């Protein structure tokens, strides 16, 4: 018999990351909202360099992806990892360095991008000193995570942790690969590869930033927080393992679908298309596993705003991952590329999948670590509905705008001339759609403000349990018993898993 050991979970770090998620979420979405309004009122660029669209847009994407979702990942990982492994994080100091290091990087990004100190790789605009800082903080995160896995009390590594590990390994490779550059000065560098090679590297990175920063860690979070919130076991654990391996194997090849019909060699384009189309299987494996986890709990979805957020998040994930393979087919891409269809597609994923899953987790997790109840279920419901409306008002007009513009670009007169030879005509035509999109963004943002109010009120009624006392049996390693798969032995021995 194993002895029962007493220890505590570190909730303080989870709270820090949760607050950072909310703060940067508000900032990132506000900047996005400004960008949306700049497209209909160009004067909002104020004729001032730091506030022009060309700098606001990368500020928005970096803030939303790396500040909002990034902190969301860490919040969820630090909460779930400790509980799944029945141990405290390996080092409180590393946790703190990770937290403050990441926030410092965000501040550095928020200062340098508006000053124009940036490169031209989308979602990797930051200049080389910040790239190095990101690598260092990321290593601290990995060190802390893997060391925690090593000292775990629970022998089995739950599927969520596999997703976290895949995220860490792949993002490391992507970040280094896409930022190989030669510095000229403190804030200027040139990438090692040029032209078409640089393009392939960038979109190998760009697509896998979506895959391994916005998708795999959030699937891990889904596999932990959805069963918790629904109080139901995962529908199929076997499916979760199968779609995990399929997903990480296929995703890494999909990048060239961002370069269809460009001067990238055809073989690379075709390879990208084939793997992108195949992606629907593992993606929908995850979506279905999520939705089917709610079997027998659908009555609660009607009452519980947390489950509502999660259901819409998973549905948005399903829609975005159906649309993605479709957009990777060359004939569809010929229409969609360069248009607002892409922007609509991305925001189904970010506002729906990442945003709503984050909100669901925040509503579930914060009352727990503050030992209290959510201040207002009603306000959470209001947030859910205006957020959902916001997504619709955001995405649908952009789909219409994308199709309209693509059709206008390609329209010839019977005599064989371009019907809309002046590009500007195809822009002014879709301005009403941009207005509706800005309205959608405003609704979504208003929902977030309601959440901030609700959470402030919730936190005030409770007290943070900074160190949550708990106990668990000490780990006993054993060899695989007769009849077990051979790899169970490896899974039970954490050293070898690393």
């Amino acid at each position, binding site marked *: 018999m194993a002895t029962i050991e007493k220890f505590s979970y570190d909730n303080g770090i989870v709270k820090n990351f949760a607050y950072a998620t909310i703060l940067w979420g508000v900032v990132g979405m506000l900047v996005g909202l400004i960008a949306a309004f*700049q*497209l209909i009122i*160009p004067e909002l*660029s104020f*004729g*001032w*360099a730091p506030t*022009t*669209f*060309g*700098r606001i*847009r*990368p500020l928005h994407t970096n803030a939303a992806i790396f500040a909002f979702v990034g902190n969301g990942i860490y919040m969820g990982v630090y909460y779930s990892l400790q509980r799944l492994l029945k141990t405290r994080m390996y080092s409180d100091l590393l946790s703190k360095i990770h937290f403050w290091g990441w926030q410092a990087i965000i501040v550095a990004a928020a200062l340098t991008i508006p000053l*124009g100190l*940036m*490169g*031209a790789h*989308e979602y990797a605009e930051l200049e080389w000193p910040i790239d190095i800082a990101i690598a260092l903080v990321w290593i601290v995160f990995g060190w802390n995570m893997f060391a925690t896995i090593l000292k775990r009390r629970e022998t089995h590594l739950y599927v969520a942790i596999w997703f976290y590990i895949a995220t860490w390994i792949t993002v490391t490779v992507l970040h280094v690969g896409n930022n190989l550059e*030669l510095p*000229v*000065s403190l804030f*200027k*560098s*040139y*990438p090692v*590869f*040029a*032209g*078409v*090679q*640089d*393009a*392939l*590297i*960038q979109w190998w990175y760009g697509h896998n930033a979506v895959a391994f920063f916005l998708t795999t860690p959030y699937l891990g979070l889904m596999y932990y927080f959805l069963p918790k919130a629904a109080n139901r076991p995962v529908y199929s654990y076997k499916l979760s393992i199968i779609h995990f391996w399929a997903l990480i194997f296929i995703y890494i090849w999909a990048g*060239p679908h*961002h*370069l269809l*019909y*460009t*001067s990238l*060699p055809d073989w*690379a384009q075709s*390879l990208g298309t084939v793997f992108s189309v195949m992606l629907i299987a593992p993606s929908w494996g995850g979506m279905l596993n999520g939705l089917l986890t709610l079997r027998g709990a659908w009555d609660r979805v009607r009452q519980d705003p947390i489950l509502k957020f999660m259901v819409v998040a998973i549905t948005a994930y399903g829609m975005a991952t159906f649309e993605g393979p479709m957009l990777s087919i060359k004939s569809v891409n*010929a229409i969609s*590329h*360069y248009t*607002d269809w*892409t922007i609509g597609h991305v925001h189904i994923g970010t506002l729906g999948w990442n945003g709503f899953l984050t909100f669901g987790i925040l509503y579930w997790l914060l009352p727990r670590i503050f030992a209290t109840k959510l201040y207002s279920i009603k306000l959470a419901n209001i947030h859910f509905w205006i957020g959902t409306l916001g997504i619709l008002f955001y995405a649908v007009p952009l789909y219409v705008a994308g199709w309209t513009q693509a059709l206008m*670009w*390609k*329209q*010839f007169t019977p005599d064989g*001339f*371009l019907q809309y*030879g002046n*590009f*500007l005509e195809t*822009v002014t035509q879709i*301005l009403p759609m941009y207005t509706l999109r800005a309205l959608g963004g405003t609704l979504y943002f208003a929902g977030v403000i309601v959440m901030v109010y609700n959470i402030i009120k919730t936190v005030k009624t409770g007290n943070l349990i900074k160190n949550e006392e708990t106990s668990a049996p000490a780990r006993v390693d054993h060899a695989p018993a007769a009849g077990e798969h051979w790899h169970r032995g490896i899974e039970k021995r954490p050293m070898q898993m690393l």
Partner: protein
Amino acid sequence: MVEVFPMLMVESNVPKIESVKPYTPLELSGRDIYIREGCLACHSQMIRPFRSETERYGEYSKSGEFIYDRPFLWGSKRTGPDLHRVGEKYPDSWHYNHMLDPESMSPGSIMPTYPWLITNDLNNRYVPAKIKALRTLGTPYPEGFEDEAVADLQAQAAVVAASLRKDGIEQEGLENKEIIALIAYLQRLGTDIKPDPQAEN
């Protein structure tokens, strides 16, 4: 990996075009301004091989045209038109006025104004270092070119400034402004493979 490495190792994947030459120091400075201002958020530089695109923009883009593009600037969104063949399409003064106030050239345009490009002096401090760095990475600038780069830049800037003055644009210290570099870059874009009109005669 299997996908990325052949692109980096197998030379035939990126055919070279003899007439494609490295950017001049002034064009390079203009290109870095293009990056600094995030122009690629709204403008692509990659014409796809469709009739609707070649009709609108010109010859479709070839991979050999980008071998000196560090970083590549193909972009992913056309809120404004593609710029790969914008070179020599408009006079220099059109670009000057357009950057100052896009609506003066395209009424109804939603492009922001860029007044600081007109007033800011171009910073030439890092030009030699940039030339050296790019040569290290493989751009065939001749040995020692970094020492002549600033003079080369100023000579080309004087030509652009003269063309602006010819069109009636008067401004003190015009040849030292950032706008000159940006115009030089934009006018170079996509022109390397244009057939020489005299060669046909």
